[in-house]
């Protein structure tokens, strides 16, 4: 009776943007058809690009490895459909740079069937073997960062992990992929957790779910296998609750140090969709060749959650989903941390969690006024930075001071400061630009 009044755990600061998840949260995941031509970039992850192991004109099978990892900080790529490798050439990427990609033309009537590889059995495989299998399966953080999962799971020798956190928060508005995955792929998630517990050596596992997904929490609790040390915890609905550092703070009360990693506080966090993919692919020795995305936003008529082959060009996906002719802007990811796209010829990659499309009137930029030091942004910043001061320094072009004295590089660009600013100052956009400049300078010899 009092459950509605109960305070869920949370972190300090943060904001409450409209969730806008009602349109797609109840729509089951649907399989997406193959595009006429798929573009599989060789670098969909953070790290070194993969090395292609196919040649132009070669026929490949769906699920076949078409590019192998180049070193530890790299992952494999797999064919999203059975078809012909047309060419290996430059293709536009999300970073804005042209990057090498494999152009694949699926055979007409290519089936959805995937061939199996060498299975990796959780009961018999060692931690090292599981890490290698994760790398060979091409699995990266599917929440959006696309950091290679096997690198994240490789715990430094001087640190121990006591808790594994499965991140099912999905605080970004509009996106409902994790929500659907947690409802539909519970068995995969629990299998994935078995692998992750073995790799990290953690004694317990917490699945963190935001309070707007109580149906998920109930379903997960009901389906918990008795032999797993897993608990399902509900956290408050607040943005950016799904950020790694915020979730650790909310669930365990531990604070990840500035510039540090979750392993510094004995925690590893893994996105729930990544966990589900590990549980789905590793027992069959398969590679990741599709992922779940949300296509939504007011300009889309067939909104939904789709299991889409990686490499599907965005234009094909949006046309299939019924994009309105008046669409003026398409965002990759959600409205808070996503970015507007300059071209629809960009392919869907492993790090793509969704697309939302808007029409002109919904994306008009407001007029910017001077900062009056109201400190709304200071109260919103989940990292306790001072966005107001950073904004003034960015205006003055003092990026070195921003980095050295005001911890600019700790900012993970959640956009809370820009969201609350009553003067409509594009704070996070300026920080992103300043970070780009600082990184460029530090990389220069």
């Amino acid at each position: 009776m009092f459950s509605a009044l109960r305070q869920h755990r949370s972190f300090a600061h943060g904001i409450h943007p409209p969730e806008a998840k009602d349109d797609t949260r109840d729509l089951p995941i649907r399989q997406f058809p193959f595009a006429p031509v798929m573009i599989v970039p060789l670098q969909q992850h953070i790290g070194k690009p993969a090395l292609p192991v196919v040649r132009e004109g070669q026929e490949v099978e769906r699920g076949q490895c078409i590019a192998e990892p180049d070193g530890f900080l790299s992952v494999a790529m797999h064919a999203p459909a059975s078809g012909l490798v047309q060419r290996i050439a430059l293709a536009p990427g999300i970073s804005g740079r042209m990057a090498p990609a494999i152009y694949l033309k699926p055979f007409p009537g290519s089936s959805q069937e995937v061939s199996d590889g060498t299975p990796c059995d959780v009961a018999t495989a060692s931690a090292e073997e599981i890490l290698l299998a994760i790398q060979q399966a091409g699995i990266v953080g599917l929440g959006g960062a696309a950091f290679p999962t096997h690198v994240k799971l490789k715990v430094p020798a001087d640190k121990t992990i006591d808790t594994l956190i499965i991140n099912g928060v999905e605080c970004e508005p509009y996106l409902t992929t994790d929500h659907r995955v947690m409802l539909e792929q519970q068995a995969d998630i629990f299998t994935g957790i078995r692998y992750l517990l073995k790799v990290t050596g953690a004694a317990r596992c917490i699945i963190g779910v935001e309070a707007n997904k109580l149906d998920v929490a109930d379903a997960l609790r009901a389906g918990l296998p008795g032999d797993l040390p897993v608990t399902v915890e509900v956290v408050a609905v607040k943005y950016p609750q799904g950020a790694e550092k915020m979730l650790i703070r909310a669930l365990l009360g531990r604070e990840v140090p500035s510039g540090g990693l979750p392993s510094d506080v004995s925690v590893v966090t893994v996105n729930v969709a990544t966990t589900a993919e590990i549980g789905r692919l590793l027992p069959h020795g398969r590679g990741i060749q599709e992922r779940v995305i949300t296509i939504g936003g007011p300009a889309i008529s067939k909104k939904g959650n789709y299991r889409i082959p990686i490499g599907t060009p965005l234009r094909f996906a949006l046309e299939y989903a019924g994009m309105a002719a008046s669409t003026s802007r398409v965002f990759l990811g959600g409205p808070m941390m996503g970015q507007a796209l300059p071209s629809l010829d960009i392919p869907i990659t492993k790090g793509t969690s969704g697309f939302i499309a808007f029409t002109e009137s919904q994306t008009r930029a407001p007029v910017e006024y001077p900062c009056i030091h109201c400190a709304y942004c200071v109260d919103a910043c989940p990292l306790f930075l001072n966005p107001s001061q950073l904004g003034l320094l960015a205006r003055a072009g003092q990026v070195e001071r921003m980095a050295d004295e005001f911890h600019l590089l700790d900012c993970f660009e959640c956009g809370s400061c820009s969201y609350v600013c009553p003067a409509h100052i594009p704070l996070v956009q300026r920080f992103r630009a300043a970070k780009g400049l600082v990184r460029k300078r530090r990389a220069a010899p």
Partner: protein
Amino acid sequence: MVVLTAVLTIGGLTFLLASALIIANRKLYVEEDLRIDVVEEMLPHANCGACGYPGCRPFAEAVVAGIVAPGKCSVSNAQGHEAIADYLGIAVGEQTRIVARLACAGGTNVARNRAHYSGEPSCIAAAQVAGGGKACTWGCLGHGDCERVCDFDAIHMNSHDLPVVDSARCTGCGDCVDICPKDLFSLHPEDHRLWVACRNLEHGDAVLAGCAVACTACERCAVDAPAGLIQMRDNLPVVDYSRPHATRVPIERCPTGAIVWVDDSVGMIRGAASKKILRHGALPEAAS
């Protein structure tokens, strides 16, 4: 008595501290060459760092110490260099003027945009949004960060939103090199006039859909140039400036005008065979 004690105490203390100061002044005296001040006065006080020293004072120290020649200061002119050389009785040294050159010729009249960028009007901000709105992902975004960062008023955006470097004013300080998110500026001796004004790594006529003055990697310049002067690398010609390069032959048959001759008074001179550019207004945005 009280007054006397006070006077003696303070007086003694004063004497003691004064002696300490006098001794310290003698013992710890730093011998500094007075010529450094004079040379610093003769320098332009731009503190731009183009010479490789943090500012004019450290440069003056290095000149007086004989580590560098006065000619290394790229802001001062020949007259200024000679004045310093005469004063110190040393050689002027090499007076190569270094200027910034832009490796893009894609103004709004020849290069298409694939999207309209309406955010923060700055190149580094635009480049963070999936590389900006330009169809050519290597090309100049045209929001003028270089114009704003230039301390010497040497960079101006032309009517096609493309920066033009005023060689006479450019001191080669490198601020534009640092700020450009597409890394299109580089510092070159002024006599490097044979210049590849493109960074597009694609090849074939397909690149012309995005920009009319892009390099199609046809290799005519490499064939026409004196042997070894131009090599093709990653679908772009690369000029070997260690060889004699004062020739306009390579630009003549370029079909697009991607390789040019830089003239200080006229700007970038395109070859006779290059496609004429008739459009003055901006190209319409590509529908995408």
